[in-house]
């Protein structure tokens, strides 16, 4: 199935999603990698607010290449999400609803996804030029000193994504290869 979603999303929006479905995501998506996540944790530890409204938000694990003059963004494919595993459950419990990246997540993240009715979506790893084409607007909102790791507010239109972890405990990285080996392998 293919779903069209616009951020911020609700638990009800995400409930029908199943592992292997595709999503065309529109609206606002915030970028954050390891360094930005670490600073977000420091803010939370100090009792301060996050630099963006967290309820129903989508975070894209990406560090784009610099944009050429007149262009919105450079190449912008996903980075390996596992490096964010230490931080994601806390953000999901606070209301973050969508994680976008590539690669496997640990058990704690999977539990937090199920507990909060959230999702983990894959962008195409290594396809930075293709992923960039759905970005309409870019603005650095904080931590500019982090360079490509600064938090950016992206406005995206129909960003093509694949459901990896759904709110019901599904994981495409397990079921996808298993289904192929069962039915497709020659």
């Amino acid at each position: 199935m293919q779903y069209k979603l616009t951020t911020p999303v609700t638990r009800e929006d995400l409930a029908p999603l199943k592992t292997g479905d595709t999503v065309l995501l529109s609206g606002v998506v915030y970028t954050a990698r390891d360094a930005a996540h670490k600073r977000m944790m420091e803010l939370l530890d100090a009792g301060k607010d996050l630099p963006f409204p967290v309820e129903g938000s989508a975070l894209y694990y990406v560090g784009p290449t610099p944009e050429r003059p007149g262009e919105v963004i450079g190449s912008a494919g996903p980075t390996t999400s596992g490096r964010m595993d230490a931080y994601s459950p806390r953000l999901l419990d606070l209301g973050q609803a969508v994680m976008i990246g590539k690669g496997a997540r640990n058990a704690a993240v999977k539990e937090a996804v199920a507990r909060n009715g959230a999702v983990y979506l894959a962008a195409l790893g290594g396809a930075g030029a293709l992923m960039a084409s759905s970005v309409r607007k870019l603005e650095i909102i904080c931590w500019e000193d982090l360079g490509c790791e600064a938090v950016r507010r992206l406005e995206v239109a129909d960003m093509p994504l694949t459901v990896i972890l759904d709110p019901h405990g599904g994981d495409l990285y397990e079921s996808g290869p298993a289904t192929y080996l069962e039915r497709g392998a020659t």
Partner: protein
Amino acid sequence: MRTIAAAEITTAVARLCVRANTVLPEDVDRALEWAYFTEPWPLAQETLDLLRQNQFQAWNQKLPICQDTGMACVFVELGQEVHIEGNFEEAIHEGVRQGYGEGFLRKSIVADPLRRINTEDNTPASITVRIVPGDRCALTVAPKGFGSENMSRLAMLKPADGVEGVKNFVVETVRLAGPNPCPPVVLGVGIGGSFDKVAALAKHALLRPLDEPNPDPFYESLEDELLEEINALGIGPQGFGGKTTCLGLAIETAPTHVAGLPVAVNVSCHVTRRATEVL
């Protein structure tokens, strides 16, 4: 004796950084095309199609193929008859600085592994020099992304582990990596040498074109067997499931100690980049 000005090396390296990051080597492109036509699983074939569309998009938009434009690994085959006028290593770093700056490539290098301050110009390059006969200077820039680099592994096996031990280690490396290194992967495999040497062999093996078989028939068939076993894992493009888990792999070997069997696997992705110029 032939003199090459350091400035000439700088401009060549700068050009190569940009070219390597925007145009996939022909052999990797052909391997992706072949995988697309031979992939039996529909979802996997669609995914491979998107990866090929991405290359086209990159070319069209003058964008890097992947946003991780990597650590600039520079391999130099320097003729022993060549005299470099100027600072050789600084010339390479300057080429990286210019190429990554003018080419709008991402600056991904931190100056210190624990204090992690970005150098802002993607220097220093990781330079490997080999002195060879002749009066040429061959420069290869192979930008290496770390999504795949992080999935690489090294083991000091026992001689008794033999060929089976090596095969198990290589296949297990790909299985453990799963979807993380952006499959379909390309593998550089080093066997033999010492702890440091075997990693260098694996890295260097990634420079061999995928359609060029190992010159030693024994290792050529080992490469074929490994490819077949890896592509039976079912991981598939992006880890969504499918046949195409590995586009190709190259083995490099070196003499080793009677007591050892070092093996290293340098994992690379479907955007395995390299570009060469000979001065």
